[in-house]
């Protein structure tokens, strides 16, 4: 009889353990106790970030995006929500990126001389040899996703327009980090309240970047490592051999094929007609003029897409469409002038007259 009670208790304990386990799994991983680190002057930290060379590492980057961007087929990683990517680098320019998208995956490998981009959805490999003078496209994607490069750029550009401080410490991907905070100076007319960068206390490499906007407590966007291992990586990761039955194309051939796609026309127009920059610092505005023929050649479906995500505005400068996200505003005038910046819409209305 007693034995029966013991077994019953053991079985009940098993049930409770299982239930507790599920609840533990369901809870988001806690940030943990912030580590105690020696004080450091913010300017010194910035300097160290700018001079540090992140060596070889491999890790998982989580992107938490609440910017309010519409989902674009080509880059699903930009849509709102959580996305993760895996990144490996040898510290000397060789790089591997794995971008899972549902049950598919996009892999980008830079072996030092060639950039390979593989997409499991259409079994296609894009191969681009590095050119000496021109930047290859995947490096833009790399900047967007690699916190190291992203933060350095931000620090560089904003030093003279921002207050820089160190606001405590944090634990990111199980590494001790300083929280470096950039706050736009009061004179800056920007949507951004502050940018928080968690800097690894040892490597002085940014581990996490969070952008906070006016009027919200939660960051509008966070890019950061959820897991990182620092040290030499398997050299096989930086090689890529296209699978036996994959289509291998070059970016030039691909561009030709995609010329008819609507979003690309706008993108090309924005990239192509060398953009003009107005103002300095956080409230600088980029302007461009889309050629009239590109404006009239927008297909109906693209027009529908534009109409769905924009609102019609008009003023002394003319009339156009306004596209708003939490961190940036874009104004497209009906005559083809385009201005964009991390600023409230009024700044764009004031600036658009200067676009030539």
């Amino acid at each position, binding site marked *: 009889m007693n034995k*029966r009670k013991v*077994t*019953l208790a*053991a*079985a*009940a*304990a*098993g*049930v*409770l*353990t*299982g*239930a507790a*386990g*599920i*609840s533990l*799994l*369901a809870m988001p991983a806690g940030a943990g106790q912030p580590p105690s680190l020696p004080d450091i002057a913010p300017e010194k930290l910035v300097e160290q970030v700018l001079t540090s060379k992140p060596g070889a590492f491999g890790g*998982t980057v989580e992107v938490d995006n609440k910017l309010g961007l519409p989902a674009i087929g080509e880059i699903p990683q930009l849509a709102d929500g959580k996305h993760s990517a*895996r990144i490996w680098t040898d510290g000397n320019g060789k790089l591997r990126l*794995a971008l*899972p998208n*549902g*049950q*598919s*995956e996009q*892999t980008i490998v830079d072996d030092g001389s060639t950039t*390979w981009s*593989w997409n*499991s*959805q*259409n*079994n296609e*490999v894009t191969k681009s040899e590095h050119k000496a003078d021109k930047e290859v496209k995947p490096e833009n994607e790399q900047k967007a996703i690699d916190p190291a490069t992203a933060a350095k750029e931000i620090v560089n550009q904003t030093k003279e327009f921002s207050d820089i401080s160190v606001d405590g410490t944090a634990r990111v991907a199980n590494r001790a980090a300083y929280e470096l905070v950039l706050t736009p100076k009061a004179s800056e007319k920007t949507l951004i309240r502050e940018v928080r960068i968690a800097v690894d206390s040892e490597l002085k490499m940014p581990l996490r970047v969070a952008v906070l906007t006016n009027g919200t407590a939660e960051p509008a966007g966070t890019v950061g490592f959820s*897991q990182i291992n620092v040290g030499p990586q398997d050299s096989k*990761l930086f090689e*890529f*051999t*296209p*699978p*036996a*039955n*994959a289509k291998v194309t070059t970016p030039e051939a691909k561009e030709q094929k995609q010329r008819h796609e609507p979003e690309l026309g706008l993108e090309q127009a924005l990239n192509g007609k060398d953009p003009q920059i107005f103002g300095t610092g956080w409230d600088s505005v980029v302007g461009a003029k889309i050629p009239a023929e590109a404006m009239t050649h927008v297909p109906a479906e693209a027009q529908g897409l534009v109409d769905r995500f924009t609102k019609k505005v008009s003023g002394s400068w003319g009339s156009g469409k306004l596209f708003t996200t939490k961190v940036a505003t874009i104004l497209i005038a009906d005559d083809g002038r385009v201005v964009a910046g991390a600023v409230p819409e009024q700044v764009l209305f004031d600036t658009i007259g200067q676009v030539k």
Partner: protein
Amino acid sequence: MITRQFGSEVRWMLRRPRTLIGLFGLILVPIIISFGIWSAGEGDGGPGLGAILNGNGMVVPIFTLFLSLNLLLPLVASIWAADGLAGEAQHGTLRGLLVAPVSRVRLLFVKLFGLTAMSLFAVTLMAVVGIIAGTAFLGTNGMMTLSGTTLSTAEGFLRIAFFILLVTFQMVAIGAVALAVSSTTEHPLVVQAATMTTIIVFQVLGQFPSLDWLHPFLITTGFPGLIDVMRDPIPLGQIWDSTLLAGCYMLIGTGLAAMRLITKDS
């Protein structure tokens, strides 16, 4: 002693005609999939794993198991769990087992062992048929992963073996919960209906973004992450989470079944 009971339980399960019919049905799945992809020919195979199946027969077993895990394999596990206790109760044979001088906990472990052995057998059978059918219909050249790398045949077999274990574990977890239901009723159909309803309801709940707080509690949430086996190198995070979640379900199911069996009047 216990090994003899294990052996007789599995023999007993294999002797049931419906087990054999079920196993035959399971091996048809990879054959139909291979044939379908082969006859569809070149072109986009669809999203996810389907897209890389062409000329890549070694992926067929993984694709088959991944698809079957959503409905077919839970159904099979629930049938075995239903036969194990409710079926025996219906035939009046459970009474004999309960009054026999055998510990009831041991009886439960014999049933769990039978469930595990048969699940492993069924999943392995599907995988082996998948490898053969996939290679025959689609050809093979090592195993191409979702990351675009090509693994050697040996590495491919390792991945398949790893996936067999992962899928079996999920199946046994579902079966353990079904065993708990099975211990409360004399009607095997009730067990199957209850298990399948739960699995389907879980999957429907998983579709609603507004219920995302609930998703980590559902065993079905862990299924899609198992596809990471086909990425290279394998990210273990999601696989580990899914397996832990299934382990918790297994603990709960086994515990509840044990509590019920111990307190059951013979």
